[in-house]
């Protein structure tokens, strides 16, 4: 394969990864706060629709971007309101909001434009600009890959780095992590758990909203019904694999971007389209299983080490192997509970 073709393949990987990265970051901040974000899907859908609408009304692509961000934040805050203030079950609330958003965005599109499937014919909206990096023009592969990407593709990488710094080093970030691991500990030193949850959902919504804006004002230039198509869930998987580490979540999202890009390439060949469309989701399941197996293996090794340490002490039997099976199941039962089980078993 020529350098040019590799370059353009990687270009499309980055482009396709962008919404996945935002979704992954949206899930990552929630994971750090001990929350399970299934609603990135909704945040993105509303971000995509409102972005296009505001852009169409005002004629400004930047106001459209801002509108999309706000829509994401509002969606996040709605979940916080329902679950923190209203004490609703987190999973059920998110399922409800996902179903409501899927129908709600189409309804709003219909009310505003009279069209039930796309805004392409009725709303005049633009795309966010692509950025030319002339100095990269002559670098092989890298130049083709990085040059002329959408503004938000660079934004996604920047967002991952900023989120990392925020979580690791800022006071609020430290508090979010403390709440995520041991809410009682946080509460006991005066950190308000419910305020932290609200803030987390707002940031998560912002990131999801930007991901949505990219879908309708970067990846394409109009809103189409259900255009997010499961990207929120793929982002959630990416984040779960690395326990919410933002940089890791970004890299995982890029792995899924690769499978997306391969699927796109295969569509040009004679391969059956439906099968190819399935590829990114099938990859998700396979990667999740592999990660889970690795986690269980390392956990078993840790227990064995502990057991042999205990064995070395006179008078104490090597117990703990059978006892720790429960915590093992804790890991196997869900990527999100793994962090919790790991934390509490100490």
């Amino acid at each position, binding site marked *: 394969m020529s350098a040019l073709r590799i370059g353009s393949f990687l270009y499309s990987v980055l482009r396709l990864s962008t919404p996945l990265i935002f979704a992954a970051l949206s899930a990552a901040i929630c994971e750090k706060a001990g929350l399970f974000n299934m609603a990135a899907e909704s945040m993105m859908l509303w971000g995509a629709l409102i972005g296009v609408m505001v852009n169409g009304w005002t004629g400004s692509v930047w106001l459209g971007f801002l509108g999309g961000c706000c829509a994401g934040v509002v969606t996040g805050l709605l979940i916080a309101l329902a679950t923190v203030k209203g004490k609703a079950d987190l999973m059920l609330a998110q399922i409800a909001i996902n179903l409501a958003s899927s129908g709600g965005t189409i309804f709003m599109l219909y009310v505003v434009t009279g069209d039930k499937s796309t805004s392409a014919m009725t709303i005049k909206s633009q795309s966010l600009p692509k950025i030319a990096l002339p100095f990269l023009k002559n670098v092989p592969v890298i130049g083709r890959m990085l040059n002329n990407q959408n503004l938000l593709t660079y934004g996604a990488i920047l967002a991952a780095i900023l989120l990392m710094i925020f979580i690791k080093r800022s006071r609020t970030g430290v508090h979010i992590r*403390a709440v995520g691991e041991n809410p009682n500990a946080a509460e006991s030193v005066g*950190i308000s758990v419910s305020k932290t949850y609200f803030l987390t959902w707002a940031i998560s919504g912002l990131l999801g909203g930007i991901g949505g804006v990219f879908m309708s004002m970067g990846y394409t230039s109009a809103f189409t019904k259900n255009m997010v198509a499961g990207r929120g869930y793929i982002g959630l998987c990416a984040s779960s694999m690395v326990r919410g580490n933002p940089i890791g979540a970004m890299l995982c999202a890029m792995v899924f971007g690769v499978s997306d890009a391969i699927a796109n390439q295969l569509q040009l060949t004679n391969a059956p389209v439906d099968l190819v469309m399935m590829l990114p989701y099938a990859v998700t399941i396979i990667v999740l299983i592999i990660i889970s197996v690795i986690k269980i293996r390392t956990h078993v090794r840790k227990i064995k080490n502990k057991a042999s340490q205990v064995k070395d002490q006179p008078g*104490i039997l090597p117990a703990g192997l059978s006892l720790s099976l429960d915590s093992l199941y804790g890991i196997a039962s869900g990527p999100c509970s793994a962090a919790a089980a790991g934390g509490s078993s100490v």
Partner: protein
Amino acid sequence: MEALKMENITKIYPNGFVANKGITFSVQEGEIHALVGENGAGKTTLMKVLFGMEQPQEGRIYVGGKQVKITSPLDAIAKGVGMVHQHFMLVPSMTVAQNVTLGIEPRKHGLVDNEACVKMTQQLSDKYQFGLDATATVSELSVGLMQKVEILKALARGAKVLILDEPTAVLTPQETKELFEQLKLLKKSGHSVIFISHKLEEVMELCDNVTILRHGYCNGSYPISELDERKLSRLMVGRDVILKIEKPDPKPGKPVLEVKNLEKLSDEGKVVLDHISFTIREGEVLGIAGVEGNGQNYLSDCISGMQKYDGGDVLLNGKSISGRKISDIRRSGMSHIPEDRMTVGCVSTMSIMDNVMADRFDRPENMKGIFLDQQKAIAQTDALIKEFEISCDDRSEEIRLLSGGNIQKVVVAREFTSGANFVLANQPTRGVDVGTAEMIRKYLVRQVREKQIASLLISADLNEVLEVSDRLLVIRQGKIVAAFSKASMVSEDELGEYMLGIKTMTPDEMEGLL
């Protein structure tokens, strides 16, 4: 100078339980003050009041001579009262420094100044010789070190009075020794420590003064120098009302339950049952007395099959229970009145009838084809409701709507009619009203005598173990430390001395009594 004074504190819970009644005690600056008493004596409630987690009905609190009202734990911290909980409030993946400075992090350029956090924590740790590495991750520390992080957390927030709630319960002997050294150092620097414990030797070694609580009342404050362990144990342990149960002498038959060299390790690898052996015969009640948390629940769980044991064996009617399903163990003669009736004893959202039938719905005599024989189930349930005087609307009432005593009656009714010849009763009358408790005790004794079944009674209630049991064992730190052939002949003072570790019987003395 007086660092803290609690005056005339009375706390009555909404269900009418009097946890504290008119308690007064004070702590001086640079003093380690012990707060002792049996479980349920009101220590924890009193400290919850002091730490702002509960509001008392009556009484005043003075900190540093000024009367204060403590409304929340945060308020308590702001007023210089810190608490080290039994369950640590730490964030495991963070470092020692991050945990100590959580919520009060120093900042530089808008970001958390990690260097300053580490410096501040290290200085504090060095000052009190805690020997902690501020950059270590908390999840990798031993329990003893985690406890020190908790103490540092309180000190970093300016605590002058430290409450330690049974701090040595989770520590090894070496760690305990270290902790005492550090507490003495804190005392020298003018801090006051309230040390909650029921380990007498620790109180005698560490503390300056002691306040004794008994059944919610204050049984006096004394300087340690005026007391010895025996006096202290008499002040702590005692019966308010002596209960008498008339019962004929036992006629023990063949062995039903044999526990042989039973060993058990906790999840943390600590030995919680240490070579326990005893035999219970037909027609007798064996009582196990002891301060709570000395292995009673592990013993109950191992015998009932709820947990696996790590060594030795339990034989029920001559067959080992090891590796068998609980349903199988029950079918071969076990019935079990668990300590926690709401989670283990019953299904709170199901009806009385469903709960009664829970262990017998699949027996052929209760079936009609593949379905439960409704007529039989109704007849059995109604008979039990009548016999045990369970006050309820009818058999289909959800069990959680009944009072605690009536729920316990349902559990007891089921367990005594399951056809088993061994009844394991773990705290069978905890938290139930006096009338029901008496009824359950008398029923237990009558069943054992009339039907020649065997019973193991685990209880922290002295009245109960002394009156209901025929023979009596005392458990401490997972070991049997005393055995008596006639429970009714044992005095409570003597029992208290064994429970609290002042005296221990040798294996020879216990020979033939197990």
